[in-house]
């Protein structure tokens, strides 16, 4: 009954550091997404993937990279962290276009 699992839940980074947010789903979903949510705002799509080996940019991809080597995993890489990347990050997945999207519990990232 795991669904979408994100790690870590909390992280503090220094400016210029790099890190990877891990995301895994056990529902055999083809579609996976990374969103960020800034305080008082809705969600903005960073990157998405429609299947293993296929990724594409969303609305706010700058400063991030992703890979999708397996159906289950969709890690998000932050290179050269900046204070503007302080946010809550949500990984999500869905089984097909138009189907319900399932979210992870979020990862709080602070860049200082």
């Amino acid at each position: 009954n795991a669904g979408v699992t994100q790690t870590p839940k909390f992280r503090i980074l220094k400016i210029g550091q790099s890190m990877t947010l891990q995301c895994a789903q056990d529902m055999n979903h083809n579609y996976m997404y990374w969103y960020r949510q800034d305080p008082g705002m809705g969600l903005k799509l960073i990157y998405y993937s429609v299947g293993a080996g296929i990724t594409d940019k969303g609305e706010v991809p700058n400063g991030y990279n992703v890979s999708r080597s397996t159906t289950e995993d969709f890690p998000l890489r932050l290179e050269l962290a900046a204070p503007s990347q302080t946010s809550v990050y949500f990984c999500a997945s869905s089984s097909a276009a138009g189907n319900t999207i399932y979210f992870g519990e979020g990862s709080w990232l602070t860049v200082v």
Partner: protein
Amino acid sequence: AQTVTQSQPEMSVQEAETVTLSCTYDTSENNYYLFWYKQPPSRQMILVIRQEAYKQQNATENRFSVNFQKAAKSFSLKISDSQLGDTAMYFCAFMKQWTGNQFYFGTGTSLTVIP
């Protein structure tokens, strides 16, 4: 581009009463999906209800129902018999049919249920 507008940043309701949250959207698409998601203080996103645009019948899930007005591009959420556990941020979301690449989210409505 699709836009989703939630014009009520904050709302409150007495426990056991009914409240309606508003959502409008702008699209040139004819086939699409609409969703309401709940985000409690834990920040986890939880699906409340889903509506396919081709269905005229309004979706219902227990105490939650929608009023879907396709011509007016309106998709409001009604919560009946409000409970303290309904206190959360509520997001309206839009997705085009035949594409899994992007959900468009509104900015949310913060709902507080008052005991």
